């Protein structure tokens, strides 16, 4: 964890760095940017899509996608708010992502909530209104069906996703360290 992690470089200028240390690829598709909040030191990689335009039907300003610190949206991943009928009218609901969340490459995320310290492997599909509590691991290629609930300290995998194990008690420290290291190693060439 950390000591021999290779430095990941990107060509200078391909990523925009914000005041709070977010690194956002210029080649990411971000619609409705005003409805998206990034907590700082989060990375949004090339080819990812953030659908901030799919907001609630009620009038006024709404946060559509919120993300905490030290998060990662991997290459080609899509984050999109889930939608359903509420009192007869269709509306989208926000996606809330906490701190230390790593989403691997080519994932499709339509979750309602992703707690802190969650690792989602590559090629996962997280269905509409899924709730992932704090501290969980979702293995690569997992498909979580609509409305699934992932409790804390659990390990999920498969299609459809199943609870397949529990995480070691040290997971929180491991994951936070990993996220911080990743952020530090991800720098311009």
């Amino acid at each position, binding site marked *: 964890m950390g000591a*021999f992690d290779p430095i990941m470089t990107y060509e200078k200028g391909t990523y925009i760095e914000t005041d709070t240390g977010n690194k956002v690829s210029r080649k990411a598709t971000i619609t409705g940017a005003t409805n998206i909040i990034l907590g700082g030191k989060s990375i949004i990689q090339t080819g990812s899509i953030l659908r901030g335009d799919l907001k609630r039907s009620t009038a006024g300003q709404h946060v559509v996608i919120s993300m905490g610190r030290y998060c990662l949206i991997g290459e080609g991943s899509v984050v999109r708010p889930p939608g359903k009928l509420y009192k*007869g009218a269709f509306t989208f609901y926000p996606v809330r992502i906490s701190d230390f969340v790593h989403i691997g490459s080519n994932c499709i995320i339509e979750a309602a909530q992703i707690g802190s310290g969650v690792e989602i492997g590559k090629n996962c599909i997280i269905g509409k209104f899924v709730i992932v509590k704090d501290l969980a691991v979702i293995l690569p290629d997992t498909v979580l069906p*609509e409305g699934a609930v992932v409790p*804390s300290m659990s390990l999920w995998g498969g299609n459809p996703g199943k609870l397949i194990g529990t995480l070691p008690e*040290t997971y929180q420290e491991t994951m936070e360290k990993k996220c911080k290291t990743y952020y*530090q190693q991800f720098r311009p060439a």
Partner: protein
Amino acid sequence: MSVSYSCSHLATPYAPLPPSYPSSSTAYHPLNKLYFCEECDATRCDLCVGVEIASYFCPNCLFDVPSANVRADKNRCARSCFSCPLCESSLSIQASDQSPTDISTIATSSSSGQAGGPPYTLVCPGCKWSSKEIGWNFDKPTGIALQLSKINTLSETVQSEFDLIKEHLESYITHSTPTPSAPSSARSSRNPSRHISNLTQMAQKALHRNVGGMTAYPAAFNSRRPNMSNQENKENVGWDELAEYRPKTSWRQLGLERGLEDAEKMREIQEAGPDGLAGLDKRWKNSWENDRSSKAMTPQRIPLQTKLTKRCPHPNCRHLLIQPDTKTVRMKIKMTASNYLPLIEIGRKRRRLPNTDEIEEQNPTFTSTEDIDCRRRERRRTRGILVKEEDEPMDSTLTSGETYSFQLALINPLYDPIQIRLTQPHTPRNAPTPKCTVNIPTPHFTINALKDAWAYDEEDENEDILMGGSEAGLSEEGTTTTGTTTTANATGTLSKKSRFSILANTGVGVSNKKLREGGVEKKGNMSKVNLDVELSKEAKGKIEFDLEVRYTYKAEDIGTPTDKEGKDKSSAKKSKDEYKHFTFWIRVKIGQVV
């Protein structure tokens, strides 16, 4: 490529058998799965800790089930959580479509369709299975399990049989709970499951029973038996005879012996094809033997999950190592080994090429200072023998007969600097020859103290600036360092480090020392040392070796603000500067020879 740590379970710490003994594999665990008992000053693992259930919860609705209800609920969620009989996803509750009007009216009237009403059904979001298929409909969208239990009780015979067994065993269990005046209470009171030991006694007795036709050693049995019963009488536990259980109805009457019915079933299964037979993985979660065809599968209530309390297994200790909090993810007590033992990682694999041509060395093809530095360092380390090395990806396969060099990184979790001694454990006599020999050029070195989190974060932020700015310093520094970016970085952090260590009043002496003490690369609370591994010509398969790591830490005086180690306290009273040792063993897996 992995490093795992030894756990000697309850025994006094010893070097586990070398990797050539497959049985030694249970002695090693990854560091993040190990616990540490401060009282025993020893590592503990999941194989040896005592485990108790702290709380039960449903993984779907996350309801905390009171432990009193768990047994009655048969360890499954008693609310509305069911798993799909086909794909095991958790089912959702859906209101039925509005009264049987045709679709066109639905489309026009906006109010209908959204509200829905009874009857409610369970539907699977994954495979669109619906409980209508098996005729399950519910009046209310809540408390499905309760509604179901009213509709769908177990068949009369099964329930009464179950009750009878329960009654039969319960009388036994309540009867044999330990009496308060039990002798040798010091030991028995610590044992939470007294009746379990009674069960083992029962089993023992059953084993010693005379077996018909086995008359070879009747004397031995007879001589032992009175002895045993005497002992048990003394212990005052008194183990009762478990009366023979007589079922209400015979399985023959129940018709488990099905005959023609079975033949009929077989024919059905054959007709239905492979999809008609429910998979074993779906069936074995059912409590009862039931129909094998997939169309007969019913949703199961979702099994509860638990949070576990873990205790030191030592009979005289039994301290809590892990105590979870029911409400949050925090742990009330969390004694994990990663806070006590240095984290060890292996990386930077290089293969040593045997050709020692000096021509190439003089050839000015390698103009970069890095390469030359690398060579110089290499030459110095191998005392004049010219060797060439090249980096290889970590996951590449190894070749037998070759020599590889690695770097071992050790990260100090303590707020004090520690000294490390790396040695190779003694191998037992007659052990098979190891697949590789390991050479540790620098077995003794120190690791700087861990700093406070805030000091750490700040350093991270400054790192980027240093990366850009320290380019000039690299060339002159290069003669004494490897010339890698990490050391260039470390020169910059040195001044900061000393400043912080003065502030924090820890490890002043060590952090101001030179950064490199003979082949040790240092950065923050991490030290990297080199390791040469020579594979034997016959080496095949998994290549791993063991190392003995002894670390010495200063048990400082009580004034140290960072002293959170309980084990330090006892020694701190005696003298100001006392050094303590801790030894553990690691197994390093370096790859495969194909």
